[in-house]
Every structure is written in structure tokens, then in C-alpha cells.
């Protein structure tokens, strides 16, 4: 299998191992677009620097914290690195686990800081 090294050579073989669930993930989704997070648990690895745009030397695990929506309506997963607290955003792929995505999207509503009853009438 291909996924024991953690340097960039794994992407030349087309797969990488998920940092959280260990699944062997192909570097490209079903429609040919590159993916950086595991479709089953949505975790990622900090290999790209979101700020400067080059490779990062952190290599920490990135856990998903939120779902954001672009103006086009496409969903983005927001990740936070557990080592350096950097935030990144990446598009959702069609074969991502829809239940985990939906759970992450509605998580703020499950724990509101104020009661939501009044908003039903607005």
C-alpha cells in the first residue's frame, strides 16, 4: 500500500492516509477535483499554508469546526489545526459523508446562546 510516508511523495501515488480514521483516501474525488480531507470523517492534514500559499512545515492534524457557504451556494469545510491553530477552508466534495456534513452545519443551532423561540415569528 502507498500510505505510510507523510511527505509529498504520497500524492504522486494518488492516495494518502487519513490522520483521524486511517482510511486510505484517493487524492482526487470522483469528479477529478483534488481533495484534501477524508470523505468519511472530514479530517485533514496541515500540509498547505493557507496564508502564504506554499507547503507548510506543521503537518499537524486538522479537525473540521464549521461549514461555511460561498455566494455561489457551495459548501466549504473550515478546518483548524490542532498544533498551530491555523484555519483553512476547502470545498466539499460530492462523495463526502453527507450525514457528518449536515451534523456540522446544524451544530450551532443545537446549542444556541439564546432561546430561538422568538425567531420563529420573525
Amino acid at each position, binding site marked *: 500500500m502507498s500510505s505510510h510516508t507523510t511527505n509529498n511523495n504520497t500524492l504522486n501515488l494518488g492516495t494518502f492516509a487519513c490522520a483521524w480514521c486511517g482510511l486510505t483516501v484517493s487524492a482526487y474525488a470522483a469528479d477529478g477535483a483534488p481533495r484534501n480531507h477524508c470523505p468519511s470523517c472530514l479530517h485533514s492534514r496541515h500540509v498547505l499554508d493557507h496564508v502564504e500559499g506554499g507547503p507548510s512545515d506543521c503537518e499537524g492534524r486538522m479537525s473540521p469546526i464549521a461549514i461555511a457557504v460561498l455566494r455561489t451556494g457551495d459548501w466549504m469545510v473550515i478546518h483548524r489545526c490542532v498544533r498551530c491553530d491555523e484555519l483553512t*477552508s476547502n470545498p466539499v466534495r460530492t462523495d463526502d459523508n453527507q450525514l457528518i456534513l449536515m451534523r456540522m452545519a446544524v451544530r450551532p443551532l443545537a446549542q444556541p446562546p439564546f432561546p430561538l423561540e422568538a425567531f420563529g415569528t420573525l
Partner: protein
Amino acid sequence: MPRNNHSSRGQQQRRRPQRHKDVLHTQGGHRANDFRCTSCRLDVSPAAPGTAHRNHCPNCLASLHVDRKTPGDRDADCRGRMEALGMSVRTDGEWMIIHQCASCGELSANRIAGDDNPLALVRLALRPLADPKHAGRALITM
């Protein structure tokens, strides 16, 4: 508006103490005067209930890109307008607004304050559910 969500776990769940903020107070660079929001031009007072510092406008939830690594270090050169992108929630129940700078694309996450416009907060939290395509896709896979 009460923000105390007293969970049923009680003594088991310790309130996380607020991070000690000394970056602004020791250097004497604390902005003690009002500022105007870059998006909606609201006059915003620096006193915010529930937190020691403001980082976003309570009306339109826009922010300014002034911090680089730690909140309050005022180290960024960008000073671009950050607009609210989405809402996250911490494990202790605190809502966090995800901002993205319109100039450089950098992301940041900040807690909501006690006087934030609640309708703006709820609309931001509901943004992923606005279009039924994603909800339908989740149902179809089940």
C-alpha cells in the same frame, strides 16, 4: 439577553477561564475610544458584555484584519475588511463567528459578544441550510 446556558452536567463541566489578555493593556495601545464599523458605519463602543475586547461590529458582524497570531497583537499589515463567513460552535457551547478577510483571504474565529444583533447571528448560523439542495442530498443517501 441571557447567555448562561446552564448545562445539566453541573459540577463536571468547569467554565473555561478567559484567556489572560495582556497584549493591549501592557503596551498602552488599548483603543479606549469608540470606532466606526467599516461596513455599516455604526459607532461602536469598546465595552462589550461577556468579553474583554471587541473584534466585530455588533450590527453587521464585520471585523478588521489587524491581528496576526494572537488576538490583540495588532500585528497584521493588512487592515482589510473581514466579513462573517460562517458560524462554528465550541465544545463548551460558545458560538464562534468565522471571518474571512476580503483583501488577503485569511480566516479567523472569534466568540460572539453579548450585544451582537441576534437576528444577524441566527441568519449566519442558518446560512448552510438556506438552499434545499444540500438537505435533499443528505436525505437521499440515507
